[in-house]
């Protein structure tokens, strides 16, 4: 008698770095966005060494200047170096969606797997909870949270984690329910595997590709939401540099001939989100193919 075993395909067994390298060579479409994201992340992570100036260094003698040797991208309305502010600003802009993605990924997956495993009324309750939260636009939830707890990184991150949990949870739940009914789960269960063992050793690795794809896309979307909140003055507070804040701070310059600040910060947001969503869509395609 042959029991369907849950042997992972050989590709999953290689070291992840080998995998990454092989895939990147096989798919140049993933390589370019990957390099773009990596470069930007590296620049922002190493901001104190990369940025030419202190991002909050005001120089009122040199406001709204264009590109020059001293200030590669020019200065803003109070003479702060734009390049340095963009490099430091990327830290908060890129960090918040990372925290949101991690938080929503953990909460969404935990709720979804609980829901799929136990079924019954618990499943019903969790699924309805997802539906209701899903009907409440994320940005409204964040605005409401800000009204109550005051603006800032923590409020914004917490509200977006709650808003994105059903986004991850709904897809993981349906995939986990599908997987749960596959023969390999009952086979593992028949062999005497404990629930916890089946969860961590079998179910989780098998829903991982879909979770990864969904999380990558959630990163892109939550970056847009977080930047929008900071733009509204309800997220990261000035003078902390942030790309969303910079688009808003540069707005008066649009009508007075100094559009650089808004343009550069806006362009960076678009570039990062395009790159991340290309990667996310690829991962999603692959997760579906792999089913």
């Amino acid at each position, binding site marked *: 008698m042959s029991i369907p075993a849950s042997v992972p395909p050989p590709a999953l067994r290689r070291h992840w770095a080998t995998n990454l390298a092989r895939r990147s060579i096989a798919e140049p479409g993933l390589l370019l966005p990957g390099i773009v994201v990596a470069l930007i992340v590296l620049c922002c992570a190493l901001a104190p060494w990369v940025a030419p100036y202190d991002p909050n260094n005001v120089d009122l003698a040199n406001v709204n200047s264009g590109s020059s040797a001293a200030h590669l991208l020019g200065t803003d309305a109070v003479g702060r170096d734009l390049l340095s502010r963009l490099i430091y600003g990327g830290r908060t802009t890129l960090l918040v969606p990372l925290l949101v993605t991690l938080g929503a990924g953990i909460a969404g997956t935990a709720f979804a797997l609980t829901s799929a495993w136990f079924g019954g009324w618990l499943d019903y309750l969790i699924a309805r909870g997802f539906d209701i939260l899903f009907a409440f636009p994320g940005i409204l939830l964040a605005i409401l949270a800000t009204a109550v707890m005051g603006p800032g990184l923590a409020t914004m991150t917490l509200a977006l984690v709650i808003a994105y949990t059903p986004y991850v949870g709904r897809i993981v739940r349906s995939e986990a329910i599908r997987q749960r009914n596959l023969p390999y789960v009952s086979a593992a269960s028949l062999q005497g595997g404990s629930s916890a063992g089946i969860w961590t050793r079998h179910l989780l690795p098998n829903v991982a590709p879909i979770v990864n794809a969904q999380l990558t896309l959630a990163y892109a979307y939550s970056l847009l939401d977080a930047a929008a909140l900071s733009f509204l003055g309800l997220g990261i507070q000035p003078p902390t540099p942030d790309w969303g804040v910079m688009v808003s701070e540069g707005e008066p310059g649009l009508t007075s001939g100094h*559009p650089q600040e808004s343009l550069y910060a*806006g362009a960076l947001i678009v570039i990062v989100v395009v790159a991340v969503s290309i990667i996310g869509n690829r991962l999603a395609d692959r997760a579906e193919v792999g089913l």
Partner: protein
Amino acid sequence: MVALRVFARHVAGLAVTVWASTIIIFGALAVAPGSPIAFLSGGRALSPAEKAALNSYYHLHDPLWQRYWDWLKALLQGNLGTSIAFHEPVSTVLMPRLETTLFLVAYAGLLIIVGGVALGTLAATSRRALDSVITALTTVGLATPAFVAAVGLTLVFAVHLNWFPVFGSGSGFGGRIVHLTLPAVSLALGGVALIARITRASMRTELASEHVETARSRGLSEARVVRRHALRNALIPVTTASGLTIGALLAGTTVVETAFGVSGGGSLLVQSVQTKDFPVVQAACLLLVISFAVINSSIDLLYGWIDPRVRRAAT
């Protein structure tokens, strides 16, 4: 009879969503730190009469569930409370602005449906080169937040070309159209890209299907095949997606109205958070969520009208 049952089910779903959102919105007040009266006044010095009015409207001495129930009853009677910043009933402040917001959403929604379906159909029926150009454009469109689109559009169409005003909401129908065009385009951009993608994908599937092949083999012109045989079926997934997309525009108005200085419900919500005018925040959030739920369910109903199978499946 069947239509009635479908309708009833949608209304029930709508009621549950609205009820759940009242709990979230009311609950927000309950978890606010500090004393409720200090929070509600947003740190302003209030006259004893104003304090008494707040106390009686929110029944701050009653238990939480009692307060929620009273608040709900007042809502159902159309009493949204009194704005702390404007010293006027919330409905007087909010309603005219909400009208501007709904106008803006309708305008953007129209752009999304017309633009998205047209672009998607074009991409699905044209050669590879144009198709990839449109796909690339939709990728950028999806990644461009409304406030960045606002920057670009203002720069090109308001500052350089001077076709549209930079700020304001305009008066009269014509004035509104002129003032709200750039806001509507920035608001619609992501939606157009999304609907174009979905239309393209579902159109591709339809064009490869047997009934379209049959129509072609009967000698019908390609234009007629696309319009009568492929598009109508291809629109089914598009309808569901546009419901969610257009509903989401309501939340997006907070950003676009602020970026363009349009005095609407969205910008009022943002202002009220900054001025700590909590009664307005609650009412604006609630009305935006209700509008979102109503738009969503109406489009779901429309879905049944387009696809007879859904109507039959509901019995």
